[in-house]
């Protein structure tokens, strides 16, 4: 059993990280009061932007091209999120519909462009990230084997972003203001916070993180842009709620999804798991999410003004 865990652990982590980044993006957006159902599309945009940048650059700049690609994904994700920010902050549009439009535009536009560029609609990169053992730490018994061997650099970057986000949202004045915009924007406004600006920053951050997540998928386990992140953005949204809009909760929820999906994926190769019907393993995370949502429904920690356009005149 231990061997199995050690074997599948790196895969579970690799699957968790994009979810974690995207859900953190959703955290910024929803904490500021904007529901961002477009996370899926923003991931696709980052996936595309990263693939395009890396495929064009890796011939001249082997190694650094990957990092430029990640940066490109952050930028295009953030810029694309402006569409959602403009619609939901300035125009009081229905945020769910605007987000759905983002998903649809991203899904079709990126394939349209990719097909124009490569002909097939897929963009392949030659080199992804290489897994590394962390010197010293990987020698620690038990933990070292699980957490510090065969890791991607992006994993550590993501953990850093998680810690930074926690610090920013809960320990700084900026974070307090951002959260105030999602709880009671009128009160925040009367305290001198520019609600519109805060929400813009938050939505763009969510786009940047979702974009980064899309590129992380590319450089870790995918290696090829194919126009879809197969529902990970929606799963991240569920993880955000599952984690009750808290950074550590999100970490737990995304890791749960990552582990459950990995177990379902490798079940055929592991005799003790192969006895369980595949349909149960595959549906397990979704059913658990439904049950958890029901359990949390009594005292949901959702930001109070989540999804409501800010109306200055309202009290």
């Amino acid at each position, binding site marked *: 059993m231990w061997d199995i865990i050690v074997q599948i652990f790196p895969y579970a982590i690799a699957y968790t990280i994009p979810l974690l980044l995207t859900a953190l993006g959703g955290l910024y957006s929803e904490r500021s009061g904007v529901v961002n159902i477009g996370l899926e599309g923003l991931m696709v945009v980052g996936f595309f932007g990263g693939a395009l940048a890396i495929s064009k650059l890796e011939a001249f700049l082997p190694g650094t091209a990957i990092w430029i690609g990640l940066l490109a994904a952050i930028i295009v994700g953030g810029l694309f999120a402006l569409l959602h920010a403009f619609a939901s902050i300035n125009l009081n549009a229905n945020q769910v519909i605007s987000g759905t*439009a983002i998903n649809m535009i991203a899904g079709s*536009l990126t394939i349209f462009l990719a097909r124009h560029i490569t002909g097939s609609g897929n963009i392949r990169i030659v080199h992804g990230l290489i897994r590394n053992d962390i010197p010293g730490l990987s020698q620690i018994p038990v933990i070292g084997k699980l957490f510090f061997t065969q890791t991607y650099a992006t994993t550590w970057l993501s953990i850093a972003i998680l810690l930074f986000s926690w610090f920013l949202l809960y320990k700084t004045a900026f974070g307090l203001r951002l959260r105030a915009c999602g709880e009671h924007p009128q009160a925040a406004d009367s305290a001198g916070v520019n609600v519109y600006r805060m929400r813009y920053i938050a939505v763009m951050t969510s786009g940047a993180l979702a974009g980064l997540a899309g590129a992380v998928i590319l450089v870790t386990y995918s290696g090829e842009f194919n126009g879809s992140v197969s529902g990970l953005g*929606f799963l991240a949204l569920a993880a955000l709620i599952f984690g009750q809009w808290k950074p550590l909760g999100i970490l737990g929820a995304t890791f749960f999804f990552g582990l459950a999906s990995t177990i379902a994926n490798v079940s055929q190769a592991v005799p003790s798991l192969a006895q369980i019907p595949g349909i149960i393993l595959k549906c397990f995370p979704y059913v658990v999410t439904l049950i958890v949502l029901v359990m949390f429904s009594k005292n949901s920690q959702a930001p109070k003004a989540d999804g409501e356009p800010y109306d200055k005149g309202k009290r």
Partner: protein
Amino acid sequence: MKVKLNKDYLLALVAVVLGLIAGAILIAITGNNPLEGYFYLFRGGLMNIQRIGDTLATATPLILTGLSVAFAFKTGLFNIGAAGQMLIGGLCATAVGLSLDCSKPILLTLVVLSAILGGALWGAVPGYLKARFNVHEVVSSIMMNWIAYWAVYYIVPAYFKGQFLETESRKIPAAASLKVDWLMNLFNGSYINLGFFLAVIAVIVIAFILNKTTFGYELKAVGYNRFAAESAGIIANQSILLSMVLAGALAGLGGAAFYVGYASNIQIGVSPSQGFDGIAVSLLGLNSPWGVLFAAIFFGVLQSGKGFMNAMTSIPPEIADTIIATIIYFAATNILIERAWERLRKRKNKGSALKKDLKVDKVGGAE
């Protein structure tokens, strides 16, 4: 009231035009001629009676998923789960079609009913969770989509495996198909099937329910203001549950129209795109049943013409989806168009004072 309706339709039309312009810009960016592209796109959807039949067949599931989304929307619910409801509807229809052996009228009735029931069940879960536990229907519907996806993924190969491919079911017998000879002959052998008529009947029934019945009135009241409706004695939870059940039933019927009408088997590992496109159809159709019908047929033209366009030019077929997505973004942000429109109208009303107004505007700057 009439004036307001006209304005709404006009806004929808403006969104369509803006979407087409955005598409034209994209076509131009990729080095093609937009006019040529659109010519082939619409020609591909409408050039002869067979193509028109194909367009209507493509539109059929869209009408039903659009109707599903629009109906839930009237009660203030966002049914993002039409894809899953459609899948389960299709699975039930395929299962009944492959398992039972009786005459066509009976079998077809059972096939359609099973699809409706399957979809209704899939819609009932988010509806119940929303009504009883206040779980947001968007997240629970997405979970139900995935459960439907994996259910089809495992059930089809286990019980209805295709003759040649593991990834699809066996072909359903002709007696279980919504395709009928006289209709195909009428349209020169196109894909059109009885599903289209079922969809039109559904449009009429839903329009009747929403506009002429107490039940429909209650659903809309809950959608406008749940608390006001409750204080007027409407049981909001019941309305929410029933609204999702009916929305699911419509999407389930859409599954029958697609999997045993347009197609003749069900494939695994594919989530039907009509689920999300239904949201677009509903939005462009202003959530009204008749609007949904026309919006779906318009999208049907784009979807069925894109292959022809791609064959005749070098424009990637995804342009159709891009145009649809852009239209939805413009429809969602139509307040921008509305503001411009209001401004224009004010100026028109002032008539001769136009020049003066302009000056005032300039002096006043941005309000």
